[in-house]
């Protein structure tokens, strides 16, 4: 109990950072992923742009996240702080998967819906915005929630470039206290709680929308 109370301030600091990274990376990933997904579905392909996006999302999915993080932090001449580098790398990597989810979601809408919108006089943008996306969201929400969960777990990897998030807080505490077993179990417990809260929120959203 003593150890827990001594560790709590650092854990809370780490948890705050994990949440910040998660939310910022999710915002970037979902924004990019939705745009990428729309522009690569078979009815909305744009010459040159769509193949380029397909290549980019393939690279994001093919290269391990850890390697992408190292490239963003050490190789790209952006001179980013660990916080920004983590968000950029996480957001980019995850957007590749979100794009796939969105693309599959759009392609799953029956052709008759596109045709009905076309014959009623909707423009392509209006069709996507008012007819296709609202129907797609219901279909892909569980996959979106899954991606958010996987994003949370990937935040642990950014500890490797020195960002003081939950895992790094645990590692620092192990060095300080010399008690790896209870501390790493506490780290796992904090992730479990975060994941539980995330699941609860996404379930509520799912129930409201579907």
């Amino acid at each position, binding site marked *: 109990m003593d150890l827990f109370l001594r560790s709590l301030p650092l854990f809370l600091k780490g948890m705050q950072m994990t949440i910040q990274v998660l939310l910022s990376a999710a915002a970037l990933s979902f924004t990019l992923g939705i745009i990428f997904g729309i522009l690569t579905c078979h009815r909305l392909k744009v010459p040159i742009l769509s193949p380029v996006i397909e290549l980019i999302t393939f690279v994001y999915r093919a290269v391990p996240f850890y390697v992408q993080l190292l490239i963003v932090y050490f190789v790209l001449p952006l001179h980013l702080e660990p916080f920004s580098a983590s968000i950029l790398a996480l957001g980019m990597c995850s957007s590749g998967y979100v794009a796939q989810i969105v693309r599959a979601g759009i392609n799953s809408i*029956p052709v*008759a*819906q596109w*045709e*009905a919108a*076309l*014959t*009623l*006089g*909707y423009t392509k943008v*209006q069709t996507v915005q*008012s*007819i296709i996306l*609202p*129907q797609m969201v*219901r279909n892909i929400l569980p996959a979106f929630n899954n991606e958010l969960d996987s994003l949370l777990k990937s935040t642990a990897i950014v500890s490797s470039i020195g960002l003081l998030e939950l895992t790094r807080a645990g590692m620092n505490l192990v060095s300080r206290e010399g008690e790896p077993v209870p501390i790493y179990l506490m780290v796992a417990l904090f992730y479990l709680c975060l994941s539980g809260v995330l699941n609860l929120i996404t379930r509520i959203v799912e129930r409201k929308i579907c």
Partner: protein
Amino acid sequence: MLIKNLYLKKKVPILSCINIEVPREQITVLLGKSGSGKTSLLRCIAGLERYTGEIVFKGNVGFVSQSYALFPHMDALSNCTHPLRKVLGVAKKEAEEKAREMFAFLDIEKLASAYPHELSGGQQQRMAIARALVLDPHFLALDEPTSALDPENTERLILLLKQLANKGRGIILSSQDMAFAANVQDRAIFLEEGRIAKTLKR
């Protein structure tokens, strides 16, 4: 509307050498066995197929497909008011009035707040017809519009289509229901294997 030298080919020829006129103020009925090209011709008129030849007309075309294709995430009223507001920019109140008027005529006014999956086949069909009609198109193409309607609602539809034709709209529809076709048509076109076999005028 003038259809000149229309050909549609996918893996096999679907429509060949179609030359017809769809006049305003008249109801043209397409007849023929299934697979004779009725739906394909209507889809060409609605702009949903890549054909060769020409379809010349002034104004816009409304289309009611056999699958209805109502928007499942909107209730019945929104299915009709949304295109009015988005496409024609009609104000919300006016759009709702127009839609309710059409619902009343098609005897579906009580279903305004129902979602498509809560409606029967016949109700969905009337809803799809209402959605196409509220936009007040110059030409209306309907694919088997009575396939799910009972005799009473078929009568209503005949009345509505005749009223629309009298108002100057050009109507073309396909049907397997010979009694309905005989009752509603000003002109009947028989299709056989994608070609016009016979044209009858009233």
